[in-house]
């Protein structure tokens, strides 16, 4: 029995995760060529590295196929119903910051809040005969957010990429997407609603509630990680 640690398999999120663990004396590395999704762990016995798409980590944690994992809070909340019952957030890791926001065309001078969006949704539906479309890949989060705000007469359309472009292409009237600086939004003539922050997300260390693997190894690993960065 070992502890299976799932981390994002590519990009900056992977590099930053590797750095974060290295600072705490746990060295993660890729085996063989960098194109092969296999990894190794040095500095602690009994931990197995599993490289996964960040979006699959919540599901794998919930199923207990990995015992610890690193991914964004946005993905945990989007992918898992009642996420608190399935995984435990151990600590935010201080990188991978991103905000999930609702944005509309900047020229909609009559819209600055969710109240306005709701009123415009009614106007739009009466005028165009269909519901105002909001493009996103975060269906659960956006739906819950809009339900709590009492926004009606909208429809979510799925957009897995280039979401900011959907408004100009007239496949959506508004979007809900991750932004870190807002530059892409501005470049596409969009603005964020004043109360349109759906979620503030960052990379987070998570533990499965479905299985811990080897208890002893888990305890030792967590102690290491909780202790914070090693002195140089």
């Amino acid at each position, binding site marked *: 029995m070992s502890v299976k640690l799932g981390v994002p398999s590519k990009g900056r999120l992977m590099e930053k995760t590797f750095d974060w663990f290295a600072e705490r004396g746990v060295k993660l590395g890729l085996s063989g060529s960098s194109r092969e999704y296999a990894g190794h762990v040095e500095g602690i016995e009994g931990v197995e590295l599993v490289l996964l798409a960040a979006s699959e980590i919540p599901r794998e944690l919930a199923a207990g196929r990995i015992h610890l994992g690193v991914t964004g809070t946005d993905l945990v909340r989007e992918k898992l119903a009642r996420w608190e019952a399935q995984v435990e957030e151990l600590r935010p890791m201080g990188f991978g910051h991103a905000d999930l926001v609702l944005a509309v065309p900047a020229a909609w001078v009559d819209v600055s809040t969710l109240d306005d969006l709701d009123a*415009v949704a009614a106007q739009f539906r009466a005028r165009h005969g269909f519901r105002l479309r909001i493009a996103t890949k975060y269906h659960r989060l956006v739906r819950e957010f809009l339900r709590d705000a*009492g926004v009606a007469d*909208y429809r979510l359309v799925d957009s897995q990429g280039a979401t900011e472009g959907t408004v100009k292409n007239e496949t959506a009237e508004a979007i809900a997407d991750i932004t870190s600086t807002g530059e892409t939004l501005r470049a596409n003539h969009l603005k964020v609603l004043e109360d349109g922050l759906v979620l503030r997300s960052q990379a987070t260390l998570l533990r499965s509630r479905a299985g811990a693997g080897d208890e002893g190894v888990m305890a030792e690993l967590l102690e290491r990680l909780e202790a914070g960065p090693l002195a140089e």
Partner: protein
Amino acid sequence: MIAKSDIRAEAARLLDYFRAAGAAHVEADILQPARTLIDLYGEDIRARTYVTNDPLRGEMMLRPDFTVPLVLHHMANGEGEARYTYAGEVFRQQQAEADRPSEYIQVGYELFSAEDPARADAEVFALFGEVLSPLGLRASTGDIGILMAAVRGLKASQARKAALLRHIWRPRRFRALIERYSGRAPVPPARAKLLADVAAGRDVIGAAGPLVGLRGREEIEARVRALVADAAEPPLSEGESQLLDEILSLHETLPMVLERLRDLEVDMPALAPAVERFAARTDALAEAGIDVDGLMFEGSYGRSTMEYYDGFIFGFYAPGAPAMPPVATGGRYDALVRALAREGGCPAVGGVIRPGLMLEVRKGMA
């Protein structure tokens, strides 16, 4: 645990009971076109239902209730007076309450009739009351039509009334609108700035950069004009918002509520038709043998759970089991028929019983 075969047997008994009351037995498909239901209830319904994809038919939904298929059945079959009964599974995702079943059997009775709505309401309620009477359930009733009449009677612009009516089934949004129209909520800074810029004659849209998307300049201008008009409108009077609060907090037996409504009607004559309907229904219920002096009415009953039910509504609850969903619910859904039929559409009232919950209550009594 109650065996499904027992629930089916109970459902069959209920079906016979409603048939004996003159209802025709109707079957509905389990797979319903998702589009109809999402258009009606909005995106929220996806979180409460099972939507699946068919390569040829597009999105299909596992039937979350029978009402919509029954209304469509009625529209396709002549629209005259009709009584229907049905029994079968409905499917609901449980996002938060994992111990609630996501699949259960409902038996229903629906009455389509353009004649004498009070009598129709009483017929349905009495039928349900009788078959449930051995279980010692507590009944609650309500009528969103009274709140709607009060909104229509406000001294406010059509735009404000329309906004309130649109959110009549969303209590929080409704409350927020009342606060704003009463002048109790502050004007958001961006709105204040927009109004000032418009008043100064600035080209606000032009200054905001290129316009992208399907919503055109003229639509934005129309809403800006509406905002300017709204800002100039006097606030709702204290008395009017109090009257709405009073209606929402009514919680009394039917005759007591009627008396209270007669008082309110003095302040707002526009309530009269809704109060008359209430009075006629109370009479019809009494004639049908219901003890109206023991029947409760709640002003906000069913408001957040029964969208499109715009008249009489009712529910039957097991006393001492607050966590149990209602054993039976129903009401008048003329607004739903109107939304589906676009024009015309026959007024309708009906309800459903969950035979599984009947058996649970009976088991608890044994």
